């Protein structure tokens, strides 16, 4: 265990734990757009930056992204020093110039007292804040169907060559993790469209409702050792079946 001080309070944390987790556990609210527990920390939005120092540092301070900084013995953390607040304000201001209509950014900025950006709004700005969650989730699942393309201000998230991505299985993980709901998809009957690619959905044998795509089911049964029959039912029907079985077992147990 490691002892550190956060905003004047001594806290204990596991060795190797990232600072952001510990801060959150203390009930301290600091914004972060590129952080998600499901994927490795990335350190791109810089909103979770905090001020750190140590008694041995002779007054020297450093500013680090807490999502990526492992806890250290004797660390003194300030999550809301004037410099840090100024930094967060400016970053939110900059994000607001790029994505003025993204609700997440509007809300975060409002918390720091910003309702309108003080910079020039970017002409071709959209709701994508380039947090990279979609590509990282896609990579983590093993598909790598989309990635960030281009450099600098022209950076965007796209499938290879802006064509329907061959490796996409239509699992919707990217759209679900997107904090600004920028990634669009449509589900019409048994047809799903995402990234310009069309998918046919499996239909649950019991409820007749569409479930997941053929490609995703095939991928899961192949790579996760799940029998193909499993995907003939949707989650609700699976739970019902499970409940019935459990009921039978309990019943059977009582009779004995």
């Amino acid at each position, binding site marked *: 265990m490691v002892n550190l001080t956060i905003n004047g309070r001594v806290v204990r944390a596991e060795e190797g734990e990232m600072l952001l987790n510990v801060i959150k556990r203390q009930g301290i609210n600091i914004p972060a757009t590129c952080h998600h527990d499901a994927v490795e920390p990335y*350190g*791109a*939005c*810089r*909103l979770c*930056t905090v001020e750190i120092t140590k008694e041995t540092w002779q007054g020297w301070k450093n*500013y*680090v*992204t807490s999502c*990526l*900084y*492992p806890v250290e013995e004797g660390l003194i953390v300030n999550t809301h020093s004037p*410099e840090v607040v*100024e*930094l967060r304000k*400016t*970053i939110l201001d*900059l*994000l607001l*110039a*790029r994505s003025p209509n993204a609700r997440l950014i509007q809300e975060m900025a409002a918390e720091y007292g910003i309702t309108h950006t*003080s*910079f*020039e709004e*970017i002409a071709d700005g959209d709701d994508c804040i*380039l947090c*990279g969650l979609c590509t990282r989730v896609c990579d983590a699942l093993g598909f790598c169907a989309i*990635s*960030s393309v*281009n*450099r*600098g*201000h*022209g*950076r965007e998230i796209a499938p290879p060559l802006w064509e329907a991505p061959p490796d996409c299985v239509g699992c919707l993980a990217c759209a679900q993790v997107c904090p600004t709901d920028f990634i669009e998809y449509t589900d019409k009957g048994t047809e799903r469209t995402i990234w310009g690619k069309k998918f046919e959905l499996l239909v649950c044998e019991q409820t007749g409702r569409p479930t997941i795509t053929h490609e995703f089911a095939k991928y899961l049964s192949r790579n996760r050792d799940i029998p193909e029959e499993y995907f003939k039912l949707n989650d609700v029907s699976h739970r019902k079946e499970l409940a019935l079985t459990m009921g039978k077992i309990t019943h059977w147990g009582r009779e004995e």
Partner: protein
Amino acid sequence: MVIEPDGLFYTKVKPKDVSEIIEKTLEKDEIIDRLLYTDPVSCEKEKNYNKIPFYSRQKRIALRNLGKIRPNKIDDYIAGGGYQALARVLTEMSPEEVIKVISKSGLRGRGGGGFQAGRKWQTCRNIESDVHYVICNGDEGDPGAFMDRAIMEGDPHSVLEGIMIAAYAIGAREGYIYVREEYPLAIIHLQKAIDNCEDVGMLGDSILGTEFSFRIRIARGAGAFVCGESSALMKSVAGEVGEPRAKYIRSVVKGFYDKPTVLNNVETFANVPAIISNGADWFKKIGTSKSTGTKAFSLVGKVRNTGLIEVPMGITLREIIYDIGGGILDDRPFKAVQTGGPSGGCLPESKLDLPVDFDTLTEAGSMMGSGGMIVMDDKTCMVDVAKYFLSFLVKESCGKCVPCREGLYQLHALAVKISEGRATEGDLDKMEKLSEVIVRGSLCGLGKSGPNPFLSTVRYFRDEYLAHIRDKRCPAGVCRELIHYEINDKCTGCMACITACAYDAISGKKNELHVIYQDKCTKCGACVAVCNYEAIDVT
């Protein structure tokens, strides 16, 4: 052309002169007067190249073999004492001893950071791991810099030898040279050098009959400036997108494929064999106490003698610009010198007597960087310079983190606003505040040093910014939106400008004063370029 061993120096030699040189100079020891160098100031002819200020003030260590050997012949390199240092290291020295020599010499990384090379190697060696890597950074992305290119093209073996010595010291068996795709000749020469070494047993298994085995490969970069940053470079070598990662764990500890990695740049490695051969004390005597040795610069811009130079550390900027560089072109007043590449800074006349070393330049608000040095005269607008370098960085930012991607974009937009005369003084404050956030909040070195072009120019040339903002005037006559062209009474009516103007914005008859129509003028400057009578004022 230099004829050794006397150092006889001929300039502007053409193929047709060669037979004459052989007949007269080589066979009869006669000197051909018309080919000798003439000093532009004293107009005297000089025979020996070592007496010419451009060369006499230099001290060549990293560039020692440049132009003296054929780069793709390993025999030439060996004949000049090459691979002696490696042989000595492998047969007589332990890895610890090698690191001791390098540490004692005080060699600091020539790529920009100026980190002690010996300390880096020691840290890497101390880390227990099955594999250690050594990588050479040849991704010289700064506009106007070509030191590493010259070394890789002109003396690839010295780089290889340096890498091999480093590999032996840290216990690496595999190494990479990362070269940008824009340097095709460097890639060819390096590959040739590697092939030659493999043929003669200088690379591969049990080199020179010792137990040391080492292989080296070239990784080609696709020309992203950010890939010169260590963590991005390592990702790029591994075949991933070249984006930096946060370095709370340093790459010496966890670098290429998460293994301990030593990354130094081309010039650093080129210095290593010379240090081993001549000893740490020899190297320490050159330069200053904290920045030992020499540094190569590419001296460009408005100076008489441009080109590649290597000078001892501690030399002043004035000596470089006026003695080696021969002063400003057309004897115009000096305005600023830009060092350290795009994320470096501009230093004014008052800083010309500063000694050139890592710490002094950083203190003055610029940096050593990899060694670009751009000299500017009074016709350069500092707002325009800041705008140019910012636009470079906006394009070259990888776009991963917000302060760098969005912050530099907005900083550039504000610089444009100033140069177009649309800004207020509040915008200047805003730029300074924004710069502070970018410096503090960015992920990697590119962002952290990104606002430097603005910060250093506003620090030393604030008046020029204010002239743009308050008076809507560009004192250097560069920013198009704020200047206009006018014909003065020096005009002889030669009609040259009328022909040159592509927009029919000048009218006038032969031998009569011409007039520029301001509404048609696009301020392209074509008329100024053709006028022989200084008859066009830019105000």
